């Protein structure tokens, strides 16, 4: 708790810094701002109190709080400290980014988790060639909420697709070539991703050296990527994506992934676990549109070929309810497990719609938005209105409420919360 007080004090003190700067003279450009130093240090502080409205009848509530029932609401204080530093000399550079998550709640007490998000060295002998080694994120794909063709990245949270993610340890390179004509750019990005004890061991099967790659083409004003991964830690997979502006304010994009021998564990109607292996195809189609009044609309349809069908999800929720009843009568907890059903986008077919209106009523730096994420198979959804203000230099204030709506045995209906209210204060330095 004391950590949160220090974090809050630093952020409040920092609030006055931009105000002091704003009082200075008109239109000055101090050239010292343009001088480049070989090193850089910066970071991001975040304070985020959250109020959860709990759904006591939901499967995930029972899974999490089966032995410690909660009230109607649960409050939580979250903090985040991200530090980044870099050093550059000639063609060599180093980059490090750390992330510390802090959490305090009456239920779970306080916790802290720190990790290097990225830490890698770069060699840039020319604008056409770059070689990097260390822990880093690649972030392939063109989708906003989902990226089925991003084979060497951790999955995004579609509820927060712009959050920084933790990378994997890898060696990679970029080779770029520009041309005149319909093909303007070609680039190739090979990736070596080792999985051994203590090295990327959460990625997949151990003692494997995986090879992945991306070919990028800017062809007829269309971005096209071809991606692949092989090596054994995960089953072999191949993908492609594209993005193109149809008009100045209308963009279309898509992604496709073919996954050979995709494995998952499903529960049948009796609650028996079965390992299933089959080829899977995931794909995404999306648009981004901007009106003259600065209303941005993002719409994406996502088919998750490795996800659980409506029936498989229903079997799982039924199994959780059976296990919960057994626990209540016998105290046996062994049947209660998540099994991957609680991950982001565990189902098969989704719709994502985000409407964001930039600077309505001439209020500069103010952006209200509304986001819908719907499981198309069971018609459950989350609806998230939010208000974002970035008018104070280096500050970001966001207020959002998420409503999770759905019947019993539906994905969003069985989440542990009915609603969530949060206020996020972020400060960059």
């Amino acid at each position, binding site marked *: 708790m004391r950590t949160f007080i220090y974090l809050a004090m630093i952020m409040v003190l920092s609030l006055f810094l931009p105000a002091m700067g*704003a009082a200075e003279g008109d*239109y000055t*450009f101090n*050239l010292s*701002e*343009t001088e*480049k130093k070989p090193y850089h240090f*910066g970071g991001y502080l975040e304070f985020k109190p959250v109020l959860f409205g709990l759904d006591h009848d939901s499967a995930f509530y029972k899974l999490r709080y089966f032995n410690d029932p909660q009230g109607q609401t649960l409050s939580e204080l979250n903090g985040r400290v991200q530090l980044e530093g870099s050093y*550059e000399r000639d063609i060599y*550079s180093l980059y490090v980014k750390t992330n510390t998550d802090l959490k305090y709640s009456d239920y779970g007490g306080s916790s802290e988790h720190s990790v290097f998000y990225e830490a890698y060295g770069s060699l*840039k002998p*020319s*604008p*056409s060639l*770059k070689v990097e080694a260390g822990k880093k*994120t*690649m*972030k392939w*794909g*063109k989708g*906003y909420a989902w990226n089925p063709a991003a084979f060497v990245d951790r999955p995004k949270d579609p509820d927060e*697709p*712009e959050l*920084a993610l933790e990378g994997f340890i890898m060696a990679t390179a*970029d080779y*770029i*070539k*520009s041309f005149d004509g319909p093909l*303007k*750019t070609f*680039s190739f*990005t090979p990736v070596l991703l080792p999985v051994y004890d203590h090295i990327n061991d959460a990625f997949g099967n151990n003692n494997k050296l995986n090879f992945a790659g991306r070919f*990028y083409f*800017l062809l007829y*004003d269309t*971005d096209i990527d071809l991606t692949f991964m092989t090596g054994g830690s995960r089953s072999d997979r191949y993908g492609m994506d594209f*993005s*193109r*502006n149809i*008009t*100045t*304010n209308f*963009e279309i994009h898509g992604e496709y992934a073919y996954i050979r021998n995709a494995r998952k564990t499903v529960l049948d109607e009796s609650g028996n676990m079965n390992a299933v292996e089959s080829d899977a195809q995931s794909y995404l189609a999306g648009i*981004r549109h*901007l009106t*003259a009044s*600065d209303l941005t609309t993002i719409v994406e349809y996502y088919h998750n070929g490795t996800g659980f069908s409506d029936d498989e999800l229903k079997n799982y929720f039924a199994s959780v309810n059976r296990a919960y009843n057994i626990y209540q009568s016998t105290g046996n907890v062994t049947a209660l497990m998540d099994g991957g059903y609680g991950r982001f986008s565990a189902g098969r077919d989704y719709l994502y719609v985000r409407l964001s209106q*930039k*600077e309505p009523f*001439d209020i*500069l*730096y103010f952006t209200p938005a509304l986001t819908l994420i719907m499981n198309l198979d069971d018609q459950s959804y989350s609806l998230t209105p939010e208000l974002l203000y*970035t*008018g104070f*230099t*280096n*500050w*970001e204030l966001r207020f959002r409420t998420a409503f999770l709506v759905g019947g019993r045995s539906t994905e969003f209906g069985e989440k542990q919360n009915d609603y969530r209210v949060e206020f996020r204060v972020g400060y*960059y*330095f």
Partner: protein
Amino acid sequence: MLKTIIVVLSLLVALPVYALDGTALLKQIDRNLNPESFEMYRKLINVEPDGKKKEYTLFSVKKGVDKVAALFIAPASEKGRSTLRLGENMWFYIPNVGKPIRITSLQSVVGGVFNNSDILQLDYTAEYDVEKVEEKGGEYLLFLKAKTKTVAYDRLKIWADKGKLLPTKIECLTEANMLIKTLYFKDHKDFGGGIVRPAVVETDSPLFKGYKSVLIYAKVKQRTFKDEVFTLTFMPNLESLR
């Protein structure tokens, strides 16, 4: 008869050659504003009606008529973000999000009156045809029409100083001649290397009443780049050019 011939010849010599060729005049204005391939620093200031300001510092590079990239170096919340324009294609890279996303010319990545096409301005001759040129005292008035529908403004009216062949004011208009914004070019400055151009560009808009945005130019200098600098794959590395 001889007198008449002398008078006519004198008038022909006295008339500026550009009055006959608006495209050549616009090309010269382009070159006087910037070398064809160059780097520069800019400070962008958004001013709200109550005087409150928000500032951004950008490092920009340009090559040829249709390749331009800009990197945000301040404030901390924007540092590392970059924008790239290849002709009519525009992308925006946010380090956290990782992959460059396509953006549009009318959008504004910084808020305020300047939009993306103002920040990633190509040569005017790359996007516009000159419909006609008028002389207004010490200035030319060029009437420009966009070559394609994908250009941010359908029409431009450029007032240019006759002597310096540099713009003093530009009105950005819709197809129906509705004013979207006005750019005011001020404070001529010698940046060295033969580059003398306005160091300040102010803009206001009837669509943003009371708001104003200002661009201040610094360290404008000629520099050549490889084409590979202006690619999506290179966007995260623009800092290495500084």
